């Protein structure tokens, strides 16, 4: 069994959290992702945890893909206790496994698509700062993949039939 832990928190809290994770999944292989400053310090305190860099080269998508291939049974995200933004909740969701957020005091909350708590703060922040063009692109892509596709399946053959066999009359030069 493999457990992934995202340590987006302070050094002491991360130490506390790793201890709790280790205690709860004592037989599991724990893989933790920590920032460059804390990693060596945490490694010295938790030699049985595979501590990795939380900013791997190759971009976000490649990072998530690589993690999905590792097939973690549980994904744990450090939770600060509040409702504020924590993008790694989305990463945990994208891994497609059971995901929980645990704070330094051991409080636990389920991370799931059906729980607005998991993605709501992220959506709100993105919504406020989003580039209108990007939003429009996203909306267009969603429309194209659904209603647009249905309409196209119906009208493209009709359009081809209407165009086909028409006499060629090139427009005159202006």
């Amino acid at each position: 069994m493999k457990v992934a832990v995202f340590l987006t928190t302070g050094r002491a809290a991360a130490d506390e959290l790793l201890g709790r994770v280790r205690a709860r999944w004592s037989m599991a292989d724990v893989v933790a992702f920590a920032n460059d400053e804390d990693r060596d310090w945490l490694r010295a305190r938790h030699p049985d945890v595979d501590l990795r860099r939380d900013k791997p080269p190759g971009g976000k998508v490649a990072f998530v893909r690589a993690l999905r291939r590792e097939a973690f049974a549980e994904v744990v995200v450090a939770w600060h206790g509040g409702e504020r933004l924590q993008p790694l909740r989305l990463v945990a969701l994208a891994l497609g496994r059971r995901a929980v957020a645990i704070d330094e005091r051991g409080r636990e909350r389920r991370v799931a698509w059906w729980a607005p708590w998991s993605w709501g703060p992220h959506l709100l922040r993105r919504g406020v700062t989003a580039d209108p063009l990007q939003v429009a692109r996203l909306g267009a892509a969603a429309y194209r993949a659904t209603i647009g596709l249905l309409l196209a399946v119906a009208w493209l053959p009709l359009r081809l039939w209407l165009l086909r066999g028409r006499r060629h009359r090139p427009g005159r030069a202006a």
Partner: protein
Amino acid sequence: MRAALQALLLPWLALLWLPIGFALGLSLLLAILVVDAVAWPFAVRRRRPWQPRPRDASAASIVTVTWNGRHHLEGLLPSLRREVLATGGDHQVIVVDNGSTDGTVEWLRAEHPWVEIVALPENRYFVRGNRAGVERATRDVLVFLNNDMVVQPGFLGPLLDGLRDPRVFAVAAEVFFKDPRKRREETGRTRGELRAGWLKLAHVLPSRDERALAYAPTLWAGGGSAAFDRAAYLAIGGFDELYDPFYMEDMGLSYEAWKRGFLVLFTARSSVLHEHRGTSRKAFGDDYVDAMIRRNQHLFLWRNLTSTPAIARVLLLLPIGVLLRSRRPGRSRLQGLWFEVRALLRALPRLPQALAGRCRSRPFHVRADADVFAHANSIAACRRRAGAALGELPTPRPGGRRILVLSARLPRLGHDGSWTVFRRLAAQAKVHRLTLFGFVEPGDDDGAAAALRELGIEVVTAVRVRNPMPGNLHHAIPARLWRDYGAPAMRDAVVRALESVDHELVQIEYPEMLHLLHGAPKHAPWLYVCHESLGLAASRVAAVARGPARLVAWFRAVQATAHELRLLRPVDHVIALSDADSRFLGERIQGLPCTVVPCGGEVDIGEAAAVVEEPATALFVGYFRHGPNVEGAQWLCEAILPLLRQGLPQARVRLVGRDAPPAVQALAERPGVEVAGYVADLGAAMAQATVVVLPLRQGSGLRGKLLEAWAAGKAVVATRVACEGTAARDGEHCLIADEPAAFAAAVARLFGDPELRARLGAAGRDLAQRQHGTAGIVAAYEQVYAGLCGGAR
């Protein structure tokens, strides 16, 4: 915190603005339509087109307006004095002083007694200041000069020469900035268009042709460096006080002249150095100047746009336009929105003045708005009206034509199949004046363009970018075309090429370029060289697809065919590379003028004398960004090679070509497959191989790799699709097989028969030389040119 508050507030303000803006736009539209309807009977009854009159263009009244600009005049007047004396003629130089307090008038009287001074008691700004100067002018030609200009030697002559033609209203000089490091925001060559309900105006860098011609059209002649016909200027009403204090008055004047049937021209033979907004921005501040420009743009549209659909689009899209334009560099969206709304509110009190001007000038109009933009933007369109007034461009040989070649990518030697285009253009450039516009990939070197320039071809390039816009909602356009050849910046670059090149024929290479031209203005016949029919290629993908992918492939085939038929509508003639393409298009469009001309030319595959042929090695060469090559390689390795190796275990396949995707690279794991990637010496790779194979089931057109194999004297096994466009016969020039078993058998047969290989190689080479030589191809193109452009020259 403030940014977050603004971000939260903005959507609500935008929502509030939309109904208000829409109501405002609709009210303005109704007001304009009512005034137009009332004025229309009078306009028809009093229709008075301009009658060109001869004018004395040997002398000019040169008017300069200044306000506390003595330091600017210290640069301008000596240069102007030199120019006036060098040109000769009875010129009049008038300086209008707008109530300066820096002692300009006294200085002028003391230092430049040759200048006539109009000393105004107060600052009447640019528009009314110039009007005061014109009242003093007595010559037939008016030259307006900003006080922060320095005229260059030879400034005056070309302006006056241009005005000798009575159809010409104004001639603008080229503008350079005094500081050469500044980006050339002002050049004198201007263009504009109505796009998405708004006026897009720009100064553009003059192209090679715009520089080489004596005169090129321009949308407006700048009010600070141009010459005008005085009689026409006065008849139109001069710089309109609607735009007081400044900006857009020159645009309004020139636009009115275009609409009355005049020509407004630009000449690169005359030039000035400009400080650029040396007075206005310093005196009034950037915000005020920008606000005046925006206000006057609204007024211009209300005053001048007489096409009902155009003004309706402008005013109905007003609320959305204001929101879109509210993004201003260095300002928040909220500030930008307020700027736009305030500019609009500032324009409203002048609406009656704009409507009155609209009614006054209506009886004199002979050109529609769309015509004005077409003629002012494009040399080719303007030439139809202006003829010799623009001057003539030389061609390499007498009788040559001016051809604009638009290519989706720059043709180059030794790369993909575009070497055939390179060879053809090289031969055509000896006779015709060719301008080639093509796209390059980001980071490409200039090698391909340099090679073409060496042939005497003018090359203009633009970088291909991904389309950032949302759209294609109903899948009308194949996704690849929309994504890779749909960016507005790319389309703008193509349109600018069409406008700025003096051409009598447009030759369009590759379907991607035809797609980019969809809806572009057409001012000369269009010849489309169909390297591959979109619909045929997509149909062939569908024909070999299996399972659910087949449904998707058929959808794409319908989509590609419908789009291709739509794209072909404005095309005057099609040159297809193969009978299959010609047949496919001809069956779908009645009366489509289509000629089949193969591609070809001298093949450059290098020397391979020292290379020894390897036994039982089949070579496949392909550019792997092209989908049919990827499918062909997969079919070869997955379906044909196993059958081949059943009888010949030592048989090998070598795949050569750039940009192999992971699907092709993965084939290297199969026994007997080598993925060699790009090889610099294709001749050596060919010589090493026992046979060359072309297992293509998709795509259309003519395959350059077949000609390359024949040129190398290699025996070829190919599918019927791969042989299209050539006269290849099975067993005579190559072996043709369409099924895996037959293909494997043909390759095995050649592996074991050196004599047959030699015979086929020799016959193929002979066929390539006879039917795919450059001379024959170019001659066929000449016939098509003659048909399109009106007979042989």
